[in-house]
């Protein structure tokens, strides 16, 4: 997954192409959000789409997160296929009512009559000194809510491939794009990608320890796995891809195979997705474990602005390596 000399594509381009393809394929699809049009998207993701698809389908909204998210929900119920962009997950707190009190439960409350086929995209993550109000990773927090599906594309392939199945999905899907990945590049062959939005994926095979992660954590985990390999420890790296519903089978069978697990999540530890993974391993793999499951997560503080402080809040590959090295039985 390193950048190569051959033809490559950035994560940003992948998201854009995915949206463009969806809009070309299905005229029920539209993109709505703050500055998705004239500005080109606050992370420049939708650059050029207004010119390509026009104001009817690339809709710049006023600053009204609840209003336009709810608008997307209503449009979805009536047969459209909205892609609602909320600039960052931090602002989605202003739309929490629409996401949780409507999108997540409308189908259930109505006895199956009104499903909500909406896709809500938002940037997540930290690391660019944007400080406390712009630097949360709350995908794991949303994964607590029944009725929502939570996707966390970590690769260019997933950024390119997850949107279409998300739009085809009859239920509300939240896609979390880690903003530090937009410039990430991968070798790319233009053949149409199809990926599922159900399964976790083993990104690296290994026998000694399972590193369970997603999003930006995948890249740090793969880096850590390389270093570990040099010490003769073969880590298996599992990309969760979907935080709700979790793909227990892939996740747990990896842990059963390696009998050790480290969970890597830039989000806050307490009550995060890392806690749920650890609890499920406890419940299903307790007797297979050689040592306790460890968590390498973001420090539980609001993000500070100062670079040295912010960096200190982030799990780094070395932390993963150290954690694995401390685990029992790995160094004969």
């Amino acid at each position, binding site marked *: 997954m390193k950048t190569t000399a051959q033809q490559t594509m950035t994560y940003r381009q992948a998201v854009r192409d995915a949206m463009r393809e969806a809009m070309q394929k299905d005229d029920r699809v*539209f993109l709505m959000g703050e500055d998705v049009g004239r500005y080109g998207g606050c992370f420049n993701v939708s650059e050029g789409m207004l010119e390509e698809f026009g104001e*009817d389908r690339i809709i710049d*909204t*006023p600053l*009204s997160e*609840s*209003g*336009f*998210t*709810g*608008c*997307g*929900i*209503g*449009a*979805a*119920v*009536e*047969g*459209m296929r*909205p892609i609602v962009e909320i600039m960052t997950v931090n602002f989605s707190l202003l739309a929490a*009512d*629409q996401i949780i*009190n*409507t999108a997540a439960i*409308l*189908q*259930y*409350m*109505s*006895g*199956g*009559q*009104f*499903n909500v086929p909406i896709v809500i995209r938002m940037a997540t993550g930290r690391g660019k000194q944007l400080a406390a109000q712009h630097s949360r990773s709350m995908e794991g927090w949303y994964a607590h809510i*029944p*009725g929502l*599906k939570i996707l966390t594309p970590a690769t260019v392939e997933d950024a390119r491939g997850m949107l279409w199945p998300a739009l085809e*999905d*009859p*239920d509300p899907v939240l896609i979390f794009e880690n903003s530090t990945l937009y410039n990430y590049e991968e070798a790319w062959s233009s053949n149409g990608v199809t990926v599922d939005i159900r399964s976790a994926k083993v990104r690296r095979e290994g026998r000694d320890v399972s590193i369970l992660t997603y999003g930006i954590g995948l890249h740090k985990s793969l880096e850590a796995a390389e270093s570990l390999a040099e010490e003769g420890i073969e880590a298996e790296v599992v990309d969760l891809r979907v935080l709700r519903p979790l793909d227990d089978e892939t996740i747990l069978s990896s842990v059963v195979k390696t009998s050790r697990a480290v969970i890597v999540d830039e989000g806050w530890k307490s009550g995060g997705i890392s806690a749920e993974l650890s609890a499920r391993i406890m419940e299903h793999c307790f007797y297979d474990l050689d040592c306790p499951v460890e968590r390498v997560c973001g420090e539980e503080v609001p993000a500070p602005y100062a670079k040295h402080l912010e960096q200190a809040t982030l799990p780094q590959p070395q932390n993963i390596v150290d954690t694995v090295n401390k685990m029992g039985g790995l160094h004969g």
Partner: protein
Amino acid sequence: MPTKKTAPKKAKSPTAGNKKKIHLLHQMMRIRAMEEKAYELYTQEKIRGILHLYDGEEAVAVGVIENLQKDDSIVGTYREHGHALIRGVSMNSIMAEMYGKAEGCSGGRGGSMHLYDKATNFLGGSAIVANGLPMAVGVAFAYKRQKNNAIACCFFGEGAVDEGEFHESLNLASLWELPVLFVCENNLYSMGMPFELAEAETNLIKKAESYDIKGEIANGMDVMAVVKASEKAIGYVRKEQKPFFLECQTYRYRAHSMFDPERYRKKEEVREWKKKDPITTFTETLKTEGILSEEELKELQDKVADEVETSVQFAENGTEEPVEDLARYVYSD
């Protein structure tokens, strides 16, 4: 007035207009009767949860929905039994829903506050104040894109006006010129909060205008006044493809919900409003105008009583959603 005295015992041969008036009266009577029964059933613990009754406000739902077309959609609140019924959801399935039976319009999962019916484009049934407004905007957004000439009709109480979602929704609807009729059912209280203590500016039309939305006030205790106002409003929304704000001034006789000790208002106030009751006053008018005879009124009453009785039987005989299906509809698959 003499007219009253000389009101003929026997009704004139009914014209279309007269038929319609009788129909409107009948509709209001259906809501009233259904809800009086619901009240009784709640005290008998057949119906549970929170029950919000509409007594006194019937002219609003009847007068507005009368003018909607089949393919228009309605977004309501937790005080929506009447709206669902008038929209065409059967009393049977409403009653069954309040019983929590599988035959209910929401399969027993929604209950009184969450009536839904796809067949009649009845979109609920939201129990979060103002939460339905953004959805109504989205429904209208879809209709405009689909050029199907349908509109979204959104009912909400005056208390919802204070929520941020009201503000965001009206701005979006006006900015994008979406066909939404916003119907504010101003019954002067949001739970125990008197309207004038919640609003810095009680002239709601001024608020509508601050989004460049035309607005009008209708007497919500007079079904003909509501019919007239909503006809104009709905026509405007459909033709101009723009939102309209209709405030219907009304009153709820009963407690906010069955939990409400009603410390915040005087009994006299309720008594005063009951004198303007939309059903009794309209009945009187129709009699005076010689449109409705005692016999015909009796017939209506019997018809309504039968419908209610039938719905209770239907609900009583309803079945329970199997517990194995508890997780059904959390996700489509």
